[in-house]
């Protein structure tokens, strides 16, 4: 009854091919033994991966990205859980405005956030600081965490919390022993999603990084505009691998379709 016909399946194959083609090509070219961007035919080589790790700029940028993403995701989770509790559990004046403020980075193009933060940091004399760069990333990734935390909180059965209160638990104990474990999938899923988004962020970061704080996507962008050799493919393949690993983890914890498709 609900079969896809041959035309539908052909269309589907073409779409999947289109979606995966650039990623597959990158992963293949990364293993080329040649000096140019060519598909390896008979021989495979790891020389360009070795080249990446021998390139101090890329290693430094990778570490920058790792730190920024890990710290931004962690702080975003703390902020989002606190804000999520306020937005889910209380009805207060300004609640809608607060909600809009927290979700606003989803509506503002990263380009605009980038130039706006550049202006602020320039006035503060804070350009080129890893700390302020991380703060910018926190703002960008918090909405993603908040959405997952709010979804987890709204689906929560509160009778366990009420039982704990009746048995004399303090509100901190209730939060730590009951609420957090119950929304843990939302928290871990949110952290990973925040990590990936921060790790991949280019458009805002390109305005607010300095030579010392360049993140990996910015470094790759700068490298790609100047020279194109298979090392770029090797870095890209590594990024795809990191993303794929995080994606599989996300899928295990929360179900990737749920996170990306949303709770609609």
């Amino acid at each position, binding site marked *: *009854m*609900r079969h*896809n016909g041959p035309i539908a399946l052909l*269309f*589907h194959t073409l*779409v999947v091919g289109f*979606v*995966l*083609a*650039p*990623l597959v*090509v*990158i992963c293949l*070219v990364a293993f080329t033994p040649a000096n140019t*961007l*060519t598909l390896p035919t008979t021989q495979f080589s790891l020389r360009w991966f070795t080249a990446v790790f021998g390139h101090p700029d890329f290693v430094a940028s990778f570490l920058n990205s790792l730190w920024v993403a890990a710290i931004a995701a962690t702080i975003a989770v*703390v*902020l989002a859980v*606190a*804000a999520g509790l*306020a937005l889910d*559990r*209380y*009805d207060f004046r300004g609640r809608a405005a607060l909600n809009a*403020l*927290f979700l606003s980075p989803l509506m503002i*193009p990263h*380009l*605009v*956030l980038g*130039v*706006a933060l550049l*202006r*602020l940091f320039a006035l503060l004399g804070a350009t080129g600081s890893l700390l302020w760069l991380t*703060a*910018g990333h926190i*703002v960008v990734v918090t909405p993603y965490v908040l959405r997952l935390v709010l979804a987890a909180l*709204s689906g929560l059965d*509160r009778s366990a919390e009420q039982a704990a209160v009746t048995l004399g638990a303090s509100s901190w104990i209730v939060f730590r022993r009951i609420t957090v474990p119950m929304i843990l999938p939302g928290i871990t899923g949110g952290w990973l999603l925040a990590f990936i988004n921060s*790790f*991949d962020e*280019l*458009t805002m970061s*390109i*305005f607010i990084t300095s030579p010392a704080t360049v993140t990996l*996507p910015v470094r*790759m*962008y700068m490298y*790609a*505009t100047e020279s194109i050799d298979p090392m*770029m493919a090797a870095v*890209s393949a590594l990024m*795809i691998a990191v*993303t*794929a690993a*995080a994606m599989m983890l996300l899928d295990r914890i929360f179900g*990737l379709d749920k996170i*990306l*498709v949303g709770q*609609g």
Partner: protein
Amino acid sequence: MSSARAGTTPWLLAAPGALLFAALVIVPLALTLILSFHVYDAASGVKDETTLAHYAAILSDSYFLNIFWRTLRLAAMTTVICALIGAPEAYILSRMREPWRSVFLLAIIGPLLVSVVVRAFGWSMLLGPTGLVNEAFRALGLGTVKILYTETAIVVALVHVMLPFMVIPVWTSLQKLDPMVEAAAWTLGASRFTALRRVVLPQVTMGLLSGSLVVFGLSASAFAIPALLGGRRLKMAATLVYDEYMHELNWPLGAAIAILVLVINLIIMLAYQRVVEARFKRTLG
């Protein structure tokens, strides 16, 4: 939402985040708006006098108007192509059996999480003069076609990046459609096409609309794709802002363009919310 008595607790909980967001979203945007009215002089930089000259220049100079026109045109093309590919694909996915459905849904929306620089680089390899696409053209006897650094390359890569944003909302609205309704239409004598047009299509209109607005907004402000696949000459709004800030060092002019991009985006988002609310009210009566 279960409401407790409002006291200071919610504010204390939300305060750290709210302060950070006020300091790093609202304040910088206000500063940028102010900056866009400042006079700029190539010799002495940003001056304290105010002017509307930057906005006047953007809205009258054919150089800027051309770039804006290209931005809107390419964003519109991307949106239409995404709708033409994304909506049928979401429909096909929804009719698949498990586990294929989950596998292919992940294959389609998973690339969303791969950095846009990586995807742009992948396309620059595919579309370049020695890339696979041109290899295929040569094999078919069509000769080498210049694709990289043309508007075609920008649209192809934008469609690739934006497709998940179209598939997701259409998929979500299809989930709410009971497959038996379509089957009922067939039983009652409707052709496949009629059932699709009269039963399925109305159901996905909202998803299609919300997907289109998101795709258009994101395409119009996209940076990495036009920067890496459009080359230096084919600028779009975002690459123009980047050039004004980083190469021309004319921050006030760059700020004015950025504000314009933001305003267009916000108008689209507000229009979207209006539509959703109107629809919501209608269904609730």
